């Protein structure tokens, strides 16, 4: 027998790891003090956290909640702590929070935006949690886009019904033409039919029906809209509509049809090359020059369209990235089974491309939601616009931090929720083993 020969006669049993590697002590050792450099970083970071919190926490919690003006706030601070420095005056929020949330929306109608928000969550549930909510609820999700404007703006019920009928007309034309001619002709026909309905016929329909059957609720005008409600309204519409438009643009950009391709490329590059604020100015000022005088093209609708187009261009690029990441084999697999282009896109390509793009899509959502604050520059009273208005009031002249902290908190809650949801979704859609 040579020296290198070795045979194990007994297998080794499993043993517990040494105590210094597990438990709280092990965690601290591994994560905070694993080397001298990390120890220094830990100590410096702890000090920085302490420094910030020791300033901010007293400001937040040793504060005044009840006062009618900034001066009264200061008097209370002097009486209680002997200084006005380092104490928040939340009284301004206490006094004006309804206005910050709803703008100049009539207060006896606050239930309508609140109901719209609650119903929004109901409509989103089957979309966001498709595995836990019955699929039948999607019917309500489909109705919601027509119900929401009715709740928000009020007026006759025939307006939203007429808008919905445009889709019905399009669907009807599609189902006839796609069977008799071809799928593409069907789709083009559907778009044409819907546009003709909305632009030409729908106003007659609405007028006729509301004179015959005047059903409706109290109307609220667009200039009464404002506050955080406006941010949510603009954000939800821009997010909800830009995703499908973005998908179409991304597919168009990959198309073999040269005209379609260059139209999509041109649109995407133009919109991405222009700051949102200029698009908003176009919406608020320039469009008036081009539209025939006397046309009443609602300012909020114009802003919605601009924000949607802006977000759609970014969305298209994010989704294109997802499409590019898919291996060719997926297209070939779908083709070899005889799936046609739209089936392959809908069942195989898009689900995967969208899944890959989730982080980018949600970033775009968050970005466009925060960008809704830009409408304050064209004179709409969103939260930022209202904050300026409140500061212009003599009672609250000179107050900054409290208002912006409150606005920041509102935005943070919404954006953080979106971000958490996207992480949940990514985890849920994880199908391979890691």
């Amino acid at each position, binding site marked *: 027998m040579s020296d290198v020969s070795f045979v194990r006669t007994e297998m080794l049993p499993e043993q517990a790891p040494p105590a210094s590697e597990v438990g709280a002590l092990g965690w601290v050792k591994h994560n905070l003090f694993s080397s001298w450099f990390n120890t220094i970083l830990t100590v410096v970071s702890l000090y920085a956290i302490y420094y910030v919190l020791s300033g901010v926490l007293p400001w937040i919690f040793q504060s005044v909640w009840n006062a009618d003006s900034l001066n009264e706030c200061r008097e209370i601070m002097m009486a209680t702590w002997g200084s006005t420095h380092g104490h928040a005056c939340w009284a301004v929020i206490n006094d004006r929070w309804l206005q910050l949330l709803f703008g100049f929306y009539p207060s006896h109608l606050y239930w309508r935006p609140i109901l719209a928000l609650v119903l929004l969550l109901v409509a989103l549930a089957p979309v966001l949690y498709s595995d836990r909510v019955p699929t039948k609820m999607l019917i309500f999700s489909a109705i919601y886009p027509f119900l929401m404007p009715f709740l928000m703006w009020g007026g006759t019920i025939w307006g939203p019904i007429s808008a919905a009928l445009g889709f019905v007309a399009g669907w009807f034309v599609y189902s006839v033409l796609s069977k008799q001619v071809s799928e593409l002709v069907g789709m083009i026909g559907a778009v044409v039919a819907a546009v003709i309905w909305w632009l030409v016929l729908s106003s007659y329909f609405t007028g006729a029906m509301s004179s015959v059957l005047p059903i409706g609720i109290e109307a609220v005008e667009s200039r009464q809209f404002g506050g955080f409600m406006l941010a949510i309204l603009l954000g939800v519409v821009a997010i909800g509509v830009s995703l499908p438009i973005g998908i179409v643009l991304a597919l168009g950009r990959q198309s073999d049809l040269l005209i379609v391709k260059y139209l999509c490329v041109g649109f995407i590059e133009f919109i991405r090359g222009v700051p949102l604020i200029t698009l908003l100015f176009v919406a608020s000022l320039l469009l008036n020059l081009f539209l025939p005088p006397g046309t009443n093209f609602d300012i909020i609708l114009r802003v919605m369209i601009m924000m949607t187009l802006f977000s759609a261009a970014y969305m298209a690029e994010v989704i294109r990235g997802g499409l590019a990441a898919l*291996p060719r*084999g*997926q297209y*070939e*697999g*779908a*083709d*070899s*089974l*005889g*799936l*046609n282009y739209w*089936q392959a896109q809908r*069942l*195989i390509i898009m*689900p*995967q491309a969208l*899944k890959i793009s989730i982080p980018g899509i949600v970033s775009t959502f968050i970005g466009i939601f925060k960008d809704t604050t830009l409408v304050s520059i064209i004179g709409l009273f969103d939260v930022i616009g209202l904050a300026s208005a409140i500061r212009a009031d003599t009672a609250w002249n000179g107050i900054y931090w409290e208002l912006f902290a409150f606005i920041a908190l509102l935005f943070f809650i919404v954006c953080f929720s979106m971000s958490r949801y996207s992480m949940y979704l990514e985890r849920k*859609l994880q*199908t*391979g*083993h890691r």
Partner: protein
Amino acid sequence: MSELAIDREIDRSKMQVSDEVAIEITNMNKWYGSFHVLRDINLTVNQGERIVIAGPSGSGKSTLIRCLNALEEHQQGTIIVDGTELSNDLKNIDKIRSEVGMVFQHFNLFPHLTILENCTLAPIWVRKTPKKEAEERAMHFLEKVKIPDQALKYPGQLSGGQQQRVAIARSLCMMPRIMLFDEPTSALDPEMIKEVLDTMIELAEEGMTMLCVTHEMGFARQVANRVIFMDAGQIVEQNEPEEFFNNPKSERTKLFLSQILGH
């Protein structure tokens, strides 16, 4: 590569070549840009034939069988599959694709769908089979490839050999009359090659018309009724497997065989 032992008796009772023509290729040419990738291909395949296509890398084997279900377009000549000519008419292409199954080197399973969904997708959407019936048929074929217990897993959770067997089952669910295989075992570890070859042999035993691009010469010897050797975009030699391996005629074939069989 090369000679993997096939250690079971092959039941040849149903392996019968009929007179009915399954595929007919005449004077077919294809170019990639200015590169003449397939040159004057003439090939007739009868129902029930098991054909192995061999040849060096880049000789156009994949391109040839991908032309048969229009994953690639040919520019000259005619290809008639099961009586339908492959032309630019989309209806013909869809019809042929649903009758010709294809298995790829890299499986091309849909990773976001379960194994069962992978198998029922095309029957439901292309053939309009009711969901329940499609699922029953899928389970039948999954049992045949011996992985019914994995039906609710995702492709990413299976081994390569299992994935390739699912890919075969997925094609079979469309009830194809012809199966194309493009190097189905080339991406697999040796111990998994056998399970996939076994599945393919079973398919051959049931009389399926098969065109296989493969380097598994054991499979070619025992299962194929014809071996086609391609080089530089042309069919250089074709013969029955015994003759092809023992008595190759062309110099190129001899060189190729000596390289891959290692004599």
